[in-house]
Structure formats: C-alpha cells, structure tokens
C-alpha cells in the first residue's frame, strides 16, 4: 500500500462536480422560477446516476490498470449523458414555450 494515495482526489473532484451541478440547477430553477415536472426530474436523476457510474468507472479503471476501459466508459456513458442533458433542456424549453 502506498503511504499516500491520491486516488481519493479524483473521487472528491467527481463529488464536487456533481454537487456543483446540483447547486447550479437549484439556483437557476429558483432564479427563473421554473418548476420541473416529474419526467424532467426523472431524466435529471437518470443523467446524474449515469454520470456517477461513468466517473467511478473512469477512475477505477485507471486504478485497475485498464486505461482503454477508462476511456471507453467516457464514450459509452458520456454520449447518453449529453443526449439526456440536451433532451431535457429541449423538453423544458418546449414545455415552457407552450405554457407562455
């Protein structure tokens, strides 16, 4: 075992990014007075879960000495995350446009 392992740093960074994203979402929704409906929350939670899984797989795969698996996890899980984010934004915008 190493005297000092820096792997924890990447997990903390992963957590900060997740927490920062959550705070940003909360502040933005409050500022713009937007109330999300259940399926939009579902998509956001789903995206967050995939993000956690992607981050954990990315970091852990390097730890396992599997760099190819690490980069592939970014592709295979990063693309769905992008699709979910883009899809959610479009859903929210179209719903708000219909309401206004």
């Amino acid at each position, binding site marked *: 075992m190493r005297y000092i392992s820096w792997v924890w740093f990447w*997990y903390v960074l992963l957590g900060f990014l997740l927490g920062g994203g959550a705070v940003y979402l909360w502040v933005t929704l409050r500022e713009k007075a937007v109330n999300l409906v259940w399926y939009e929350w579902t998509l956001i939670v789903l995206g967050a879960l995939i993000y956690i899984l992607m981050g954990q*797989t990315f970091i852990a795969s390097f730890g*396992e*000495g599997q760099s190819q698996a690490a980069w592939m996890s970014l592709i295979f899980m990063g693309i769905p995350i992008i699709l979910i984010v883009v899809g959610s934004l479009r859903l929210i915008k179209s719903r708000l446009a219909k309401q206004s």
Partner: protein
Amino acid sequence: MSKSRKTHYHSTVSRRDFMKILGMGAFATAGGTLMNGPFKDLDEMMASPVADRKMPFWVKEVDEPTVKIDWDTMEVFPHLGNSLFNPNAWGGEAGVKEWMDIQQGNIDAVTESVRNNVPGQSLKDHALADAQCWGWGPTAVAPSWTGPDTEPNPMWEHPTMLWGPEHFGVPKYEGTPDENSRMVRVAGRILGAADMGFVKLDERTKKLLYGNIVFEDVEKGYDDPERHVSVLPNNKDLWVICAVIPQSLNEYGYRRSWANSNTAAYSRAAIYSNRIKTFLSGLGYQHYGGGTGSVGRAVGFGVMAGLAEYGRPGIMVSPQYGTNFRTVMLTVTDLPLAVTKPIDAGISNFCRTCQKCAEMCPSGAISTNKETQWADWADGEQPWQAKGLKGWYIDAKKCYGYMLGNEPDCNMCQTVCPFSKFDSAVMHDLVKMSISSTPVLNNTIRKLDDTFGYGKERGTDMWDVDPMDIPLWGLDTSRS
C-alpha cells in the same frame, strides 16, 4: 533490457471508500465499521455478519450444479498419477517420448529466454518464481494424510501449544452444523481461505474422491503407502471443507510472473492446509488430506460446494474471481458442517456464448463447441480425464504441450475470462448482474469486454512498478 510501459498495480480505493467519499454511504460506512471493528474473541467474530457467506443477490443457490452430471456413470479419477504430469499417462512408448520432448522443449526455451534476458522471463523473474515455489515444489510443506504430525513440547515458551481437548481434559468442541460452519469460515479466512464451501460425503460425492482413497471400518483413517491407498473411516459422517486459494490477478497478467503468482498460491495452499488441520485437531476432530492432489477433484468439489460454476476451459469460474484462483483446497473432517449448495449465476450459460478463453487460447486446446457434451472417447483412451460430466472437455495434451513446452508459461484462460476482474469498478458487478438475469445480453457483453480492452497482456516486466504499489505478499487483497 527494454523498458516496458509504466504499469500500475490495483488501486487501493475500494468501492466502499468510493461510497464514503461521495458522502452517499451511510450503509457503507456502517458496513465498513462492522468490517473493521474490533472483536473481543472468536465467538464475537463468529456472531458477526463477517462470518456469513456473502453471495451477491444475483447468485442463486440451486439444488443441482449448472453442469449436468450423470452420477450413475460418473467415473472415479484414480489418482494424480493418471494426470499428464506423469509420462506414463501419455500412452505407451510414443507417449513417453512426446512427454520427454515437451520437457526438453521447456528446458531449451527457458534457458534461451534467461540467456537472452527476455523481459518477464529473465534470470530475476525465474528466481522469483522459484522462490515462491518454496513450500510447494521440491520443498513441499503440505501435511501428510493425517498430519501435520506435530506434538506439543513442554519446553516451549508456550508449553500448551498444540494441546487438544485430551490434554486439557475437556470434551471436544460441540456446536450445531451452522455454528461449526461459521467458526470454520472465520478460521479459514484468517488462515488463508478466500472463500469456503462444505460438501457432505455421500454416495454421489464420494465419486469425486480419488480412486486411491478407500473406506474401511476403522475408528480413525490412515495412510497406507504399501497399498498406495489413503483410508477414511466408514462409520462416520464426513464433510469436505473446500477452500478457495486465491492468486494475484495483477501478477498473473504479466508473463513469467504468472509462475510466481501460481507457485505462491500453491505454497499458501500447503500452509493453509497445515493450519486448518491443526485447528481441527485443536477442536478434537479428525482431518484428512495433504497436498493439493491428495483428496479428490478440486473442480468437482468446488462446483458442488457452490464456490463456482463449471466453465468452458474445464475449470471453475467463480462469481468473484472468475477463473483467476489457483485451486480449491480440500480437507476431509468429521466436524459436522452445514453444507453449501451449488450456485447458478448464469456463468455456465455465459460460457456458451462467450468463448473468449477458447479464442485466445494459443494452443487451441479449449473447446469451441457452443454446447456441452458427454465424454465420447473409448474407455481408457484418455486416462487423464474422467467421464460422467456433460461439459466442455479440453484437449489436455495440447494445453500441456504448449504450457510446459516450447512456449513456456501460459495463463490466457485465467486472465481473459470476463469474470476475472478487479473489483474497483462498480460496472463489473452490473455486468455480472446482467449475465445472471438477462442472458439475452451475453453476446453484447462479450463484445463490449473486447471493446473495453479487457484481457490484454498487462506488460512484460512487472519490475518497473513502484514497490509500494504491490500488495503485501503480492496478493490483491481487494478481490479476496
């Protein structure tokens, strides 16, 4: 010597650490406290969940193994003398010559590698593997059939060391089979068993014992070298303690160091065997078995004990270790134990689709048939294999000839198996859950395993790693 790429040993951050760091793991923290918490004595340790056999929820206990066995026609394997390690098992004069050629090929190839300082097969790699042989090879410390033959010594610093109930004047330890199993599991973990299962010897499972083990109406078993038999008492209920002996996945992924990992595991198996038998003696119970080849078929007992399923390369595939564990060490005892049942985690079914070991096997020894089949060779034609199992039978001579012949050292079937993974990435567990519950995705999982780059050789020289990255004893404890 050429410098290989920077290599990494397994991360020391486990999934539990990950959960803690993210602040999501109240349960994980509680579990971690429980795992690491101090125990006042063995009773307290036995009473804790640590002593339970924890199988993931996607591993089901089943009444019969996932491989078909015909117990009526099941052949008893005579003894290790019938294995391909014995030149006489190769069949006649031509067979002996074939064996001798392989031996000579091995000597020539290893010598050439050492003389040419081939990374991974240089003198220092060879020396390390030889060092790990101590305890297993020519210096075997495996106990005798009824051993280890140790006696207490009143002049020792601890004069009661190796005392049993008869010395203390107390009855032998008594517990229910469940209590005994938990106790043995706790002791086993401390003594070197990564996992344990228990099989009761009955008319079926006795067929998994080697043919040179006989039952007689005696109070205590014994070894009879003159008759070449080992004797078990016929008038007792007997159980087989089946212990998984782990090996380093990291070291196994390097070339020559597979031998280092392999031999180290056998040496640990011999040490474990001495210790678990001394433990049983201390409780007042009988125990039989010595080296790895003294009791019976490791795969058969391992499958019946639910430690693994039968896999394509003809060896066990465990939900936790894949094919990457050295052996299941067998110890026969009259201590009543709660039997563990075979398991179904979808592994044998996955082997039908996957075939990665067969495709990667450089000798072509592993079957590429999709379905298992009953042994169809004529009686006596392949004395190194026993009939009675519907499985994937390997071409053992091809395997032996390659592994020990001109291309020394092969570990492909144990490193490329999609189940042979470290346990840091949560994704591995999700994949195993899918294999267990959604076999329709098996083909996709196999393809993704390739796409993600699993099963590639890890490098040729493990000497480049930071020594502090190497787990103590070289064993990746995160997997065990």
